[in-house]
Each structure stands twice: as structure tokens, then as C-alpha cells.
């Protein structure tokens, strides 16, 4: 059991708002962050309300200056496929776009909040991921997306509103489920300028992020046990950390510390720069083909797994910017919400522009209670399952439950110890009886019936013995765990984590920093120039030339990244596979004949060896 003395606690009857305040998180932002948690009302009042109809046109429902929280939740019947959304930034013309970008630069200078990316994200990934990144960037030509000027305008408008309403708001919710008391902190941001501001994956209007704390009750006190931070679209065990996990979770005066990603506002336990990978949406047949190839590559050829179709991005959670939280200059303004809060439960639309992005990255998110398609959000209705805690009892119950489980298994084991010998003896009796019947043709019918009975009983005895053996092993495990728990020994705080988010190691620099970064910046363009040259000067050798150039680029890259050995091995292996295919196409008959001969000779040798002893 956890040592309670070193943990903050609150009496079980503490009012919800007080409870939320007692454990509210401290959030550290990255220098250069453009927007911070704010109240929804001012955003809504400064927006327009729209509806996107299934046939493709968009309809303005509430004009600018007329929006209110009441109008947001006004019931409006709509046909299936209709998407309701708010729009914070109205379309800008060229002059307006140029002006807001210039104003944004001025604002950054004034606030001293220019963002510096440091080692570029492109240099952190390999050449092929960079190629995928190029394709991803080109995909914005086809997908709906937000212009950078819209994000700049959102930042300017946010700052203007912030001057009048400087408070930093979180929307808190307290839920009691399966013995746990759950505190959810929802943060609303005016925009998510990750792509335009911090070289990330996407931009969208508005952003909802969430931090959850899980507490159990002991001796009339609520004690925090787990903290789970929402990070992109991840969920499950990897999201949560135990309160005593000093490696990952920092506690400041009883408040958990969150490091927010710049622009993405994704929450991290440790400060640092995180590699975020986005898989390109591939057609089903290509994804299947890729999966088969990966299986062959890793299992048959024993090569490390890799995915050339992921795009590397960096989520900067440096924590060197603004700090919001208790005991500091910038505190929180909490607002209690639940299902009865009208805007939470009655507005199912998007909280910003529906950008018509088919893969949704640029479409604004829905509110805390819903997904973009209006369906209920898992983190809202199943906060335990969200962090993989639905299978974990609160610590005080865990010991009881384990004890009860042990008793149950032991009881069954005692039953089995009696039952198995009884059934086994019964089976032997039937066996003896069957033996007695043999050689008596007039007993054939009874013998057949007895045989069936023997078979059934034999299966039953086997099943009981298996159950007994399995129970014995289970009991051993349960007893050992019970002893450990009774002695106060806890699991390792990170025992539940499979794929932890770990920041890049700052000491792990590239082999030739500057050269690698320069190469990363220019290599893709250089490749395109070389291909253009190839088409112009040597059109007959285009495919071979392309393959050779690509190999040379990948090899050059591997030298800079200190991965020459691995890369050369992979390239040669791929070439060998191509050559094998060619050889098989030309000599398949010979290859099959040779294989058959080898098999024949081998079989013959084995059989002859058996024959001659």
C-alpha cells in the first residue's frame, strides 16, 4: 500500500470545486506559445455559427456579433450528415492576410515570445520519412486546410480578448466511478497553431485538452493515485503515471506538473522535445501490402521494424515559457461543469472551422463531451477506460479483492482434490467393467454404451486435472502477490507502461550537427533537381538512374546520421531480393528441379540410413 503520509489528501466530503482546486495542475508552456486556456464564452460571442450540409454548401446560422451561449445550444433540426460548427476567423483577403502576419510578428517582438526550433525536426528523421513529409506537405494542396494567416488572426484576436479577460480558465468535473473519485480538468484554447507556428502536423481553430486525476478513499481521506494526461489521440495504460512515479511525474506542492506541447497543447509528464509520428493515410490494399512486407522484413529477414510512411514531427514541450498554476503569478479560474452544463451537453458541433479536411487533422475539435462526429467522447463517459484503469481497483479494495480471489481459488482447489480421485476411481471401475464385457458378443450393445460413458468420464477427469493444475499455478501467483501487498511492496510505478512517450535525449546529437541539418534542409530539393537533370540529360536511364540516386542519397544521409552499416545492409538486402526475383523468373524451372532433386536425395539418404540401421 502506498505511503499516505507523503501524499496530499482531502477529506472525502470535500465539495467538488474545492477538491478540484486542491489538486489542480501546474502547466508549463513553451516559450513562443501563442494561446493559453481561456473561457469559452468570449470565444463563442466573437464567432459565427455555421452548418455544413451533406450536399456540400455551408449555411450561416448566426451572424457575427449576434452569437451567445444560448444561441449555441438552440435546438435546430438537421438532416443526417449535417455538421454544425463555429467559425472564429472570417476569411481574409490577401491584404488582410499580409497585415495579420505582420501584426503577429510585431506582437511576438513585443511579447518577446519568438519561438526557436533548435535542431530541426527534418534532421531528426531519416531520408525516407522526409520524403513522406514532402508528400504530406503536398497533400495540403488537395486537403482542406487553414491558412497560416488564420492562425495569426486567431492569436491577435485572442490577445485582444485576453487584455479584457486575462483569467486562465479550466473546466473541472468530478466523477465517482467504481470506487474511484476522478477529477477532470478541461482546457479550452482559441486555436491549435501547431503546424504554422511550430512545424507540427496540423492547425485548427480551437483546441480542447484534458488532465485527469484518479483518487481513492482511505480512512475518510481522498488520496491521489494516478494522473493521466491527454496526448494527441492516445489512450490506455501508457497515458497514466502513478503519483509516486518520481521519474516521470513531478509534483509541486501537491499539484501535478504538466508540460504542454507548443501549439499542439498536448500534455506531457516530462519537459522536452517529443518525436511525434504521423502515419500517412494509405489505401487499404497498399497498407495490407506494406504489412506483409514488414512481416517478411522483420520475421524472415530479421531486420528491425520500420515504417517509411510515417512523417516525423516534433512536439516542443520545453516548459521554458509561461507557468500557470497555484503558487505563481498566473493562477487558474476554475469553472465546474457536468452533463447539466448546457453548452457541454447540448452543443454537439465543432468548436471552430470545419475545414473540410477528409482526415480531420485541420477540422476543429468538438467539445469535451463529444467526438467530431457528435458521438460521445470516451474520455467523458468512461474516464477509467480512457487511462486503462477500468481493470484496476482502488488500492484499499485491491487487497480485499485479491484475498477474496485467493479464497475462491483455494476453495475450488479443495473441491478438486476430492473430486478428481473420486472421478478417477469411477473411471477405473468402468474400465474394469468394460474389460469384463470383451469377448462376449451378446454384450455388444451394452459395451458400446459403456465405451461412450468411459469417453465422457475420461474427458471430464482430464478437464478436472487440467483445472487443478492451472489453479495450482494461479494460486501460487496470487499468494505471492498477496504476500507482497501485505508486506507493503508495490509494483514498479511504470510496470503498466508499454510504449512510454520519452523526450529526445539532449545529449544525443547528430553525428555532424550542422552538416546533417543542412543536408536535411536541402536534400529533398536536391533530389528533385537531380531527377529533373536525369530526365533532361539521360532519359533512357531514368529508372536505373533514379534508383541509384536514391540509394546514394540514402547512403549519404546514413553517413551523417552514423547509420552507415545498417543502411548499407538494408539496401544490399533489397537489391538481393530484386536480383533473386529476376533469377527466379529466368530460371524457375531449374530452381524447382534443383529443389526437388535436393529434397529427393535428402529423403533417400534418411530412409537408407534407417534401413541400414
Amino acid at each position, binding site marked *: 500500500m502506498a505511503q499516505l503520509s507523503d501524499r496530499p489528501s482531502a477529506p472525502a466530503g470535500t465539495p467538488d470545486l474545492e477538491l478540484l482546486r486542491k489538486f489542480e495542475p501546474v502547466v508549463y508552456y513553451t516559450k513562443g506559445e501563442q494561446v493559453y486556456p481561456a473561457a469559452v464564452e468570449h470565444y463563442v460571442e466573437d464567432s459565427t455559427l455555421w452548418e455544413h450540409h451533406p450536399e456540400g454548401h455551408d449555411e450561416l446560422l448566426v451572424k457575427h456579433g449576434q452569437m451567445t451561449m444560448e444561441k449555441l445550444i438552440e435546438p435546430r433540426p438537421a438532416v443526417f450528415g449535417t455538421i454544425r460548427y463555429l467559425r472564429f476567423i472570417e476569411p481574409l483577403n490577401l491584404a488582410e492576410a499580409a497585415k495579420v502576419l505582420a501584426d503577429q510578428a510585431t506582437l511576438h517582438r513585443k511579447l518577446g515570445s519568438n519561438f526557436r526550433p533548435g535542431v530541426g525536426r527534418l534532421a531528426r528523421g531519416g531520408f525516407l520519412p522526409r520524403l513522406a513529409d514532402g508528400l504530406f506537405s503536398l497533400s495540403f494542396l488537395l486537403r482542406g486546410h487553414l491558412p497560416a494567416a488564420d492562425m495569426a488572426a486567431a492569436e491577435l484576436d485572442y490577445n485582444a480578448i485576453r487584455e479584457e479577460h486575462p483569467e486562465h480558465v479550466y473546466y473541472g468535473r468530478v466523477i465517482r466511478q467504481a470506487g474511484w473519485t476522478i477529477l477532470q480538468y478541461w482546457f479550452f484554447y482559441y486555436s491549435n497553431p501547431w503546424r504554422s507556428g511550430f512545424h507540427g502536423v496540423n492547425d485548427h481553430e480551437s483546441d480542447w485538452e484534458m488532465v485527469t486525476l484518479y483518487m481513492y478513499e482511505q480512512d475518510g481521506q481522498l488520496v491521489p493515485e494516478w494522473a493521466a494526461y491527454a496526448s494527441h489521440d492516445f489512450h490506455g495504460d501508457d497515458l497514466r503515471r502513478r503519483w509516486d512515479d518520481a521519474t516521470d511525474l513531478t509534483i509541486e506542492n501537491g499539484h501535478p506538473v504538466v508540460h504542454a506541447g507548443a501549439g499542439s497543447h498536448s500534455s506531457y509528464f516530462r519537459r522536452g522535445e517529443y518525436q511525434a509520428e504521423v502515419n500517412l493515410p494509405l489505401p487499404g490494399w497498399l497498407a495490407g501490402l506494406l504489412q506483409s512486407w514488414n512481416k517478411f522484413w522483420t520475421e524472415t529477414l530479421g531486420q528491425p521494424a520500420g515504417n517509411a510512411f510515417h512523417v516525423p514531427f516534433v512536439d516542443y514541450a520545453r516548459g521554458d515559457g509561461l507557468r500557470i498554476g497555484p503558487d505563481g503569478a498566473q493562477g487558474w479560474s476554475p469553472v465546474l461543469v457536468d452533463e447539466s452544463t448546457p453548452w457541454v451537453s447540448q452543443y454537439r458541433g465543432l468548436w471552430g472551422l470545419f475545414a473540410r479536411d477528409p482526415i480531420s487533422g485541420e477540422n476543429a475539435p468538438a467539445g469535451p463531451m463529444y467526438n467530431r462526429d457528435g458521438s460521445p467522447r470516451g474520455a467523458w463517459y468512461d474516464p477509467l477506460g480512457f487511462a486503462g484503469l477500468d481493470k484496476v481497483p482502488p488500492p484499499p479494495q485491491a487487497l480485499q479483492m485479491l484475498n477474496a480471489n485467493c479464497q475462491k481459488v483455494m476453495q475450488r482447489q479443495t473441491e478438486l482434490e476430492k473430486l478428481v480421485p473420486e472421478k478417477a476411481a469411477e473411471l477405473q471401475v468402468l474400465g474394469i467393467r468394460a474389460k469384463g464385457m470383451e469377448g462376449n458378443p451378446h454384450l455388444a450393445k451394452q459395451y458400446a454404451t459403456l465405451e461412450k460413458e468411459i469417453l465422457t468420464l475420461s474427458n471430464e477427469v482430464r478437464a478436472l486435472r487440467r483445472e487443478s493444475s492451472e489453479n495450482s499455478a494461479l494460486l501460487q501467483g496470487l499468494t505471492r502477490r498477496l504476500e507482497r501487498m501485505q508486506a507493503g511492496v508495490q509494483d514498479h510505478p511504470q510496470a503498466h507502461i508499454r510504449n512510454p512517450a520519452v523526450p529526445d535525449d539532449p545529449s544525443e546529437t547528430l553525428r555532424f550537427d550542422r552538416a546533417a541539418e543542412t543536408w536535411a534542409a536541402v536534400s529533398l530539393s536536391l533530389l528533385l533537381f537531380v531527377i529533373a537533370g536525369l530526365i533532361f540529360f539521360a532519359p533512357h536511364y531514368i529508372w*536505373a538512374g533514379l534508383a541509384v540516386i536514391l540509394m546514394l542519397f540514402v547512403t549519404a544521409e546514413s553517413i551523417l546520421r552514423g547509420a552507415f552499416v545498417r543502411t548499407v545492409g538494408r539496401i544490399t538486402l533489397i537489391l*538481393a531480393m530484386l*536480383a533473386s526475383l529476376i533469377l527466379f523468373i529466368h530460371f524457375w524451372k531449374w530452381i524447382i528441379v534443383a529443389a526437388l532433386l535436393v529434397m529427393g536425395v535428402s529423403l533417400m539418404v534418411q530412409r537408407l540410413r534407417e534401413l541400414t540401421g
Partner: protein
Amino acid sequence: MKGGPMPRRKKSDKKKSPIAVSVIAVAIVVLFLLRLYQVYEPLIRQNFFQHGINGPLFSGWGLTPLGSDLLSSTTYLALSLAGIFVLIGFLRLRRWSWVLLMAWTGVSLVIALVDYFYSHANYAVMASNVTIAFALNIPDVQRIFGIRRDSNGAAL
């Protein structure tokens, strides 16, 4: 059992070459011989040994047939000699020789594939290279050359 208990087979941690190493060594020798033929064949075709260089090597920006043959002979000679150099290191189980051999096989395969698509294919060379590439990828071979150091098989 006659003559007392059977003596236990001795086991040692001494570096031993897997069979694949011998297979690779044989393949390198075969490749050396094949490449050697590729060195001489164009020279014989051009009567190089009778008349030496008896014509221009360049025509404008391009190569003449003689120049082209001489270039390919020189390339193959370099590849053959590199093969022997690598073979020596390989038999002595040096890490650099694995890297060099893999690179050498890669280059050799590129040439073989370009030959296949654009001129005349040399299937024997291709097959030898394929054998070497796959044999070099065997985990035991990689371990003995220090390319793969872990026990769970992840490549370095």
C-alpha cells in the same frame, strides 16, 4: 557402456566461423573469377593485348567503344581486387570486412542489375552476390563480426 562413461563434448566460447562464412568465402572466390573474366573479355574483344590502346577513348563528351570497354575492364578489375582484399579480412573475422563486403556486394548488385536492364545479364554474378548478401544477413554471421551485438536479434 564399454570403456567407462562417455567423455563430455568440449564446449568453448572461442569465436568459431559459422558455415555461412565458408559459403561466403567460396562465393567471393567464384565472384573474383567471374569478374576476372569480365576484366579480360572486353580487352580481348578490342585486341588490347595485341595492339594496346590504338584509338581515341573519347568522342566529344561520350566514350568510344574502346574507351567504354577499357572503363568497364578497369571497374571490374577494381571490384575483383577489392574482393580479394575483403576476403582476407573476412577470413580473419574483421568487422570492417563485413561492412566492406556488404557495400561491395551492394555495388556489385547495382552493376549486375544495371547490366541486366540495359545490356547483357550475368546471372552467375547475380547469383553469387545474392548468396553473399543473404549469407551476410544471417544473425550468427552478423554476431561473429560484431555487427549484431544483442541477444534478442535487433540489428545495430
